[in-house]
């Protein structure tokens, strides 16, 4: 591979990876706070993509407004899911909310399949397909938009978590759930808020992917969700920068894997990387080592 191709693939990989990172953030924040692998998260991302599509096609509104509506819709969906399916199981065994999340995932997938049919639905060309050439690299307008939106959202997330009062409460809750609640943090509200932010980011990811690949389908959240989840684990689950690094890493690795002729093994690349990273560093790249008191 020449340098030009490497640079071009790197750019494509970063574009794909930034959408994985947007989904991975939701997994990592929820896991950081209540140690739940939220398997319904990938389906929230799928709903985001469909709401965005409906807004653009049926209501004919601007793509930015559609992105915003999709984010709001997913926030509501995720907060409802949390309230109905996870909150009653807060104090039970670890596996109970996990099974509950699988149930929610099956429900959302079949709900959307019965509404839209299992086939992919075309996403209209909402931005012009202008391609800019910067040196040896060609970059499409849609790629620029994806990278910029993803970066803006990640910066906004960083500001919320580090600077705002609710962000402080989030960090306190993830540090120690019980102590935080003793210190007057309304833990239920914090958890609900965490689900809301994660869902908003996933919805944005869904709309962006719809724009990028021009198609959305009811089972799109399954593979994307699993890979984003791998990304969160590779980066170190519970760590926000880790999720971003992991997402970009998986995206780039996948694009390079395909470029090297491993196309039919595309879906295995993320998982192979996952196992490799876990075996070398069992808590991921930026994960804190687990301390055990005996």
């Amino acid at each position, binding site marked *: 591979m020449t340098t030009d191709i490497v640079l071009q693939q790197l750019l494509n990989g970063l574009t794909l990876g930034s959408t994985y990172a947007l989904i991975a953030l939701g997994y990592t924040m929820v896991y950081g706070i209540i*140690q739940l*692998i939220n*398997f319904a998260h990938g389906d929230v991302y799928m709903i985001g993509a469909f709401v965005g599509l409906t807004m653009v096609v049926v209501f004919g509104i601007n793509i930015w407004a559609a992105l915003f509506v999709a984010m709001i819709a997913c926030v509501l969906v995720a907060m409802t899911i949390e309230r*109905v*399916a996870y909150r*009653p*199981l807060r104090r*039970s*065994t670890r*596996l*109970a*909310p*996990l*099974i*509950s999340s*699988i*149930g*929610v*995932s*099956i*429900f*959302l*997938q*079949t*709900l959307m399949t*019965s509404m839209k049919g299992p086939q992919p639905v075309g996403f209209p060309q909402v931005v012009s397909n202008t391609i800019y050439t910067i040196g040896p690299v060609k970059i499409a307008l849609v790629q620029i938009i994806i990278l910029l939106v993803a970066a803006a959202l990640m910066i906004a997330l960083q500001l919320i978590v580090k600077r705002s009062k609710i962000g402080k409460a989030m960090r306190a809750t993830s540090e120690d759930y019980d102590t935080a609640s003793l210190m007057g943090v309304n833990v239920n509200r914090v958890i609900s808020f965490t689900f809301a932010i994660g869902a908003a980011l996933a919805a944005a990811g869904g709309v962006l992917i719809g724009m990028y690949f021009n198609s959305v389908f009811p089972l799109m959240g*399954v593979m994307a969700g*699993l890979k984003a*989840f*791998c990304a969160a*684990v590779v980066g170190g*689950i519970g760590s926000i920068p880790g999720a971003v690094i992991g997402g970009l890493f998986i995206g780039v690795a996948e694009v390079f894997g395909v470029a090297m002729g491993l196309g*039919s*093994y595309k*879906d*295995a690349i993320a*998982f*192979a990387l*996952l*196992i490799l990273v*876990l*075996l070398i560093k*069992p*808590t991921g790249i930026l994960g804190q080592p*687990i301390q*055990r008191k*005996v």
Partner: protein
Amino acid sequence: MEELLRQYMNLYYIQVLTLICIMMIAALGLHLITGVTGQLSFGHAAFVGIGAYAAALSNIHWGLPFLICVLLGGLAAALAGVLVGFPSMRLTGDYLGIATLGFAEIVRVILMNMDITGGARGLAGIPRETTLVLAFVLAAVAIWTMYRIQDSRFGRALVAIREDDIAAECNGINGLWYKVSAFAIGSFFAGVAGGLYAHFLQYLNPSGFGFAKSFEILTFVVLGGLGSIPGTVLGTTILTLLPEVLRFSAEYRMMMYGLLMVIMMIFRPRGLLGGVDLLPLLKRMLYSLRKKQTPLNGDGNGRSV
């Protein structure tokens, strides 16, 4: 025997019951890994898949007797289980679960890309050998074996690891050896189930052994009651029957399946039979029945009430 059954039973019921027995064997394997030893596995369907393909291929290509094929399927899966068991030395809890999920996805993609397995087109032309009677007998043997394992020195070591692996190691239990053995035995059960499954459906496709199937089996075990054999049996039966019972609602079937999963979990967070010890319960029920029959003073032990 099968002919006799067919005279009294609808073919559809026979199919569903056979499937329940097959899935029960697989679920009992996961019960040993996750329920008894406490090692989270999100990739159990991969072992079922390995067993299914190994059994089907050895039947098609080598023409071995059916039961030998099923045994080979079990052994192939056990070998894969040993492979997966080793990382359990370094990975704990959710991380192990995630690693097994990754392993299972890789197995699925490899099955999808191999020539001998027929790839994404699937593998057809497997002779139909699995009968309800055979599946039922093997499921009964599996349940009996599982009780024997749990009631042995080996089984108690596994429970000790589940409760606290550091304390178990301090008491001289070789954690790695027991975890790997649990994975191997659990996978063997899955492989046997896979072999039966292959000779029941007569067609295999890698997409049938993805993580959706893995989570389905995990749900059997957790929803029934983690760590309880009657729970696993009940969970498998209910959750395999549920989609069939919900057939009346056609396209809303899986939607209701998902909803019911959430509802059952909320009302029984420890599983349907979690924390329920059946034997004393049964004794109490028998006792109260007997008491109703003979309304005497006394509790049956010579004491007056």
